[in-house]
Each structure stands twice: as structure tokens, then as C-alpha cells.
């Protein structure tokens, strides 16, 4: 009689061309490498977000240069700018319109905590977008450099897949 093929040996032999893994892990890898941001530039940070999408800093390397104007087609909402009390309702509506799974990156000091516009007696600024809905990554700066935005996206990818794409370069 033929010996039954040894499955574990089969897996080892095929590993250069066939990989096995949990479906969740594969989906997370696919989602992390093609995050589609929503064009939600409100103020100054929007310009650094556009610079990150331009050719010098190039978000296309990470699969994230396809900014979608419609929330129905977006994965991640990069809140770049100050949230106003007048605008808060619209922001919440946009968040609700995004389909699951969705993530939020709060870019800049205004989105984290109201930024430089918080003073005693302030009447118009919502102190941080996490007062409206949960945030996954906070990127401080006023405005943060495009490299900081890219680091924030890498952190989000690490949150999705559990592994960092590139190691952090430590200065010598």
C-alpha cells in the first residue's frame, strides 16, 4: 500500500509558493496595506496631509494615496484640523457613514485636544476628536511633519497586523 502523504512535510515542501494562515491575519494584512483615507482636511494639517500624498513623501508606497471624497468608500478618517462645535455634527455623520471596519487617526494637536485654541472661556472648539468617537492613533504636532503622518499610518498598520512594517530607525 502507498504510504499516506505526510501533511506536515507537504506544508514544509510547498512553503516557498503556498502559505497557510488564519483568514483574519490575511485580511488584516490586506487592509493594512491598502488603507483608503477620507479627504477630511479641515485646516492647516490638511496641507501637510497633501504634502504627504505628494511625490516627496509619497503615501503611495504604503497603499494609502487614494484619498476618497466619499465616506462610503473610505477605511480610515484622518481628522486633520480643528473640530468646531458647528462642525461636530457633520463629523459624527461622516464617521457613522463609513462602513466597518474603520479606523480614525487624529492628526495634529487640534484633533487630539483642541490644540492652541483652548483658553479659559473658549466657546467654539471641541477639545479633541476623541470626545466624539474613538480614535486609534494620535499624531501630535502643529502641524505634524509628513513623516509623522507616515509614522502614524505605520502605527495603525501595526495595530491591524500586529507587526511593524519597518523597524524604527534609532539615531546613532
Amino acid at each position, binding site marked *: 500500500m502507498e504510504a499516506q502523504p505526510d501533511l506536515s512535510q507537504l506544508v514544509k515542501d510547498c512553503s516557498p509558493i503556498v502559505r497557510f494562515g488564519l483568514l483574519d491575519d490575511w485580511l488584516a494584512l490586506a487592509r493594512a496595506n491598502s488603507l483608503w483615507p477620507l479627504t477630511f482636511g479641515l485646516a492647516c494639517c490638511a496641507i501637510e496631509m497633501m504634502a504627504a500624498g505628494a511625490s516627496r513623501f509619497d503615501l503611495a508606497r504604503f497603499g494609502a494615496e487614494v484619498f476618497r471624497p466619499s465616506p462610503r468608500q473610505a477605511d480610515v478618517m484622518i481628522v486633520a484640523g480643528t473640530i468646531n*462645535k*458647528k462642525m461636530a455634527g457633520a463629523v459624527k455623520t461622516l464617521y457613522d457613514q463609513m462602513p466597518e471596519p474603520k479606523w480614525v487617526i487624529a492628526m495634529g494637536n487640534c484633533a487630539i485636544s483642541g490644540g492652541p485654541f483652548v483658553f479659559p*472661556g*473658549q*466657546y*467654539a472648539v471641541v477639545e479633541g476628536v476623541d470626545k466624539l468617537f474613538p480614535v486609534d492613533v494620535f499624531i501630535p504636532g502643529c502641524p505634524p511633519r509628513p513623516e509623522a503622518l507616515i509614522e502614524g499610518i505605520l502605527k495603525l498598520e501595526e495595530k491591524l497586523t500586529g507587526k511593524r512594517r519597518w523597524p524604527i530607525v534609532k539615531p546613532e
Partner: protein
Amino acid sequence: MRVVNEKDPNPKMKDNGAPATPAPGAPAPEPRPNPLAHLPLPFQAVDYNLKGYHLEAAVQPGQVAVAAGYLDSEGFSLDTITGVDWLAQGQMEVVYDYFHPTRGLRSVVRARIPRENPEIPTISQVFPGANWHERETHDFFGIRFLGHPDLSPFLLPEDATFHPLRKDFSA
């Protein structure tokens, strides 16, 4: 050119910003030209290098539209309209800034209104650009511009009832 006095970098000024009286015996300074002297409005020339405008007039609240009409016929353009809340004096001041696109002149028209019932006629029929400036001044100070087509909130939320730039405002 402005000169800074090394001994006193912050020279004390009179309240209206007029320069200190010249030393006795010195010749009187030349009177400044007043290109709007022919208008029936109390325009006075001021020191442009200090104040940043050439002419100013303090008028009664009922006269602001007439003043706007005269300045419109002289070819001025509306720069901005704003308010100042003089809490201690119980008044609000409405300041109209105008600039001339070809003659390089700047003029200012002021009017003071009582603080408890701040009302002043609109000038939006003379300068349509005043529409938004008056809405903003109403948002911030609560000044009602009589005859304005639509005094709804401009920068504040649509249902706002507060006027944040008043000196007795607290959030």
C-alpha cells in the same frame, strides 16, 4: 522714519494718539492735507505713520449710511466693519474702515451707540459687501443693524444666542 528714544522706549502718548505738543519756540507742524474736506462730514486728518489711516470722522449713528453714500461717490471701497465694546462707558462703538483702490487713501468712520439697546442703520444698500461684515458684528456683539436683509448667525452656529466678544460674556 520712526525714531526710538533710547531713554524711554515707550513714550507716553495722549489718549487720542496725537503726538506730544512741540517744544516752545519750534515752528508749528504743517497741517495735514484733508482730501475729503469738501464733504459735509467731520473728517479730520490724522498721522498716518502712527495710526495707519489718513482720515477719520466721528458721526451720529443715524448718519452712517449718508457717510457711506458720500464715500461711495468718492470711489472708496469698504474694508471692514467692526465693533468695540466699551463696557465701562456703557457704549458700543461701530467702526467702518474704507480704502480707496486708486488713490491709496484710508478713512475711518465711527459711531457710538448705547450698550443696552445697540441699534444702528445698515449700509448694505450702499455697499453690498457690508452684508457679511454686519452679520459678523451682530454675531460678536449683538448690535442690530436696522434694515439689514438677513441678520442670521454668520460664524456662530445657526442656533447661537450668545455674543462672545462682549466684555461681560463668559462661556
